[in-house]
C-alpha cells in the first residue's frame, strides 16, 4: 500500500471543507471495507484520506409518518439489519442486509460507502430504489437531493462530485397495499450474486390487480437496472402466472449482463427470468395481505 496523509473529520462541516480542499488527490474514507482493498491492490492511490467514519451526526435511523425514513450515510449495514424500526416498516431492507458480505463487513461498512462504491453487484441499491429512495449530497457549497435511480452512471461511477459527501438516504413512508421483495441467486449461500433483484408490487386494495410495480436488478448491467417495459406489463393487470412469467421474460430482455467467472451473460438472463418471476409472485402475495 502507498503512503497517504490522513485526516479524521470531527464534523460534517469539517469533512466538507477538507474534501473541497483535497478533492483532486483525496478520498473519503467511511468503513474502508471496499476502499482498503482497492488501496492495497493499488487500484487507486489517493495521497490523502478524509476519514468520516467517526461522524456520529451521520449515523442514525429515523422515521416520521409523514416524511418517511431517513438513514444517515454512516449507518452500518448491521445497524440497518438489526433495527427494529426497519424490521417493522421496511423489512425488505433488513432481509436484504442479511445477504450483504459478512457480519464483520456489515459491522464496519456503511450504507453510504456501499452506494458510493457503485459496485454493479451491490445489494442495497435495488431494494432502496424499489422503495423510492433519494439521496442527500452535501458539499461546502450546499446540498442537493437526487433520486437514487439517477445516482449511478457506470461501473463504479456515480454523479457525486469529488467535493461532495453523501449524507443521508431518504425514503417515503411505506405505501399502502405494497410489498417489496428481495431475492438473490448465488452459487454458494454467501457467494457473489449472479443476479439479485428487488421487486415492489402495489395492488388495488382487495383485488388481484397490480396497480404499480417496480423491478430493479443488480449484476445484470453496469448500474442497478430498473426495468421499464416489464414493470409496465404488470400494471393494471390481474397477476396470473402467465402474466408474471411474461413480465419476467421481458425483464430478462431488458438486461445487458456480461460474462464472468461466476456466470455467462446468457445464463444470467435465464436466472433473471426465474428470480424475477419468483420475486413478483412473492411480493404479490404479500401485497395482497399488506
Amino acid at each position, binding site marked *: 500500500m502507498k503512503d497517504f496523509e490522513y485526516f479524521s473529520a470531527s464534523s460534517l462541516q469539517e469533512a466538507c471543507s477538507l474534501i473541497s480542499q483535497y478533492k483532486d488527490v483525496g478520498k473519503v474514507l467511511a468503513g474502508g471495507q471496499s476502499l*482498503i482493498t482497492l488501496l492495497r491492490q493499488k487500484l487507486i492511490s489517493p495521497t490523502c484520506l478524509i476519514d468520516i467514519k467517526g461522524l456520529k451526526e451521520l449515523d442514525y435511523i429515523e422515521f416520521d409518518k409523514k416524511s418517511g425514513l431517513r438513514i444517515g450515510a454512516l449507518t452500518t449495514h448491521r445497524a440497518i439489519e438489526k433495527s427494529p424500526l426497519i424490521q417493522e416498516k421496511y423489512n425488505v431492507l433488513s432481509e436484504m442486509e*442479511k445477504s450483504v458480505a459478512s457480519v464483520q463487513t456489515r459491522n464496519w461498512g456503511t450504507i453510504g460507502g456501499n452506494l458510493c462504491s457503485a459496485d454493479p453487484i451491490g445489494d442495497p441499491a435495488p431494494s432502496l430504489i424499489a422503495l423510492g429512495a433519494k439521496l442527500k449530497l452535501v458539499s461546502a457549497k450546499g446540498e442537493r437531493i437526487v433520486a437514487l435511480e439517477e445516482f449511478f452512471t457506470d461501473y463504479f461511477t456515480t454523479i457525486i462530485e469529488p467535493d461532495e459527501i453523501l449524507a443521508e438516504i431518504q425514503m417515503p413512508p411505506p405505501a399502502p397495499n405494497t410489498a417489496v421483495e428481495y431475492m438473490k441467486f448465488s452459487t454458494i449461500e454467501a457467494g457473489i450474486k449472479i443476479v439479485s433483484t428487488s421487486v415492489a408490487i402495489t395492488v388495488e386494495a382487495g383485488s388481484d390487480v397490480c396497480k404499480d410495480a417496480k423491478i430493479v436488478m443488480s449484476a445484470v448491467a453496469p448500474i442497478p437496472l430498473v426495468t421499464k417495459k416489464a414493470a409496465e406489463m404488470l400494471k393494471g393487470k390481474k397477476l396470473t402466472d402467465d402474466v408474471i412469467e411474461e413480465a419476467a421474460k421481458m425483464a430478462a430482455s431488458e438486461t445487458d449482463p456480461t460474462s464472468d467467472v461466476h456466470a455467462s451473460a446468457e445464463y444470467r438472463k435465464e436466472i433473471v427470468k426465474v428470480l424475477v418471476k419468483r420475486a413478483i409472485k412473492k411480493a404479490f402475495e404479500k401485497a395482497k395481505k399488506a
Partner: protein
Amino acid sequence: MNGSKKTINVKVNGESYELSIKPKMTLLQLLRNELGLTGTKQACMDNSCGACTVIVNKMAVKACSVLAMQVNGKEVTSVEGLASRDGKLTPLQEAFLEHSAFQCGFCTPGKLMSSTAMLEEMSDPTEEDVRRDMEGNLCRCTGYVQYLAAIMAVVRQRKEGSK
C-alpha cells in the same frame, strides 16, 4: 504527501497503548507487527476469509480491512485477550477443545472472535442464526460441523445456567 506518523490511543486486551503509526497501517499490522500479538492471522488480506477477525467495541471486524487510525480511542480484543492471564479458558474455548472444533488452527482465532462477539450480541441464537453469522469465517479443515456443535453447546449451557 509523506504519510507522516500519527498518534493513536487504543486499548488492546485491557492494556492502554499510545502509539505512533503510519496512517496506512491496518489494525492487523498494528496487532501483529507493533504489539507482537500474532494470534490474529492473515490468510487473504482482501477482506474475504475472516481469519483476522478481532473485536472492536464489542463488534467483530476484519482487522486486515480496518485502518489502525480508525480504532483510535477504542477497545480491541484479540484472541490473546480471551483466556484469563492465569490460564482459564472461556466457555467457548473449552467447548472448541472438547468438540475438536479445529484442526490446523489457522482460522481458529478468527472463529473464536466472531463467535464470542455473536454470543455477546445474541442471547439465544438458533443453529441457523449461528451458521449465518459465521459465514464470514472460512475454514478449510473442519467442514464446520464440530465447531458449530461447540458453539451450540455453549448456547445450551448458558440457557441451562440461566434457568
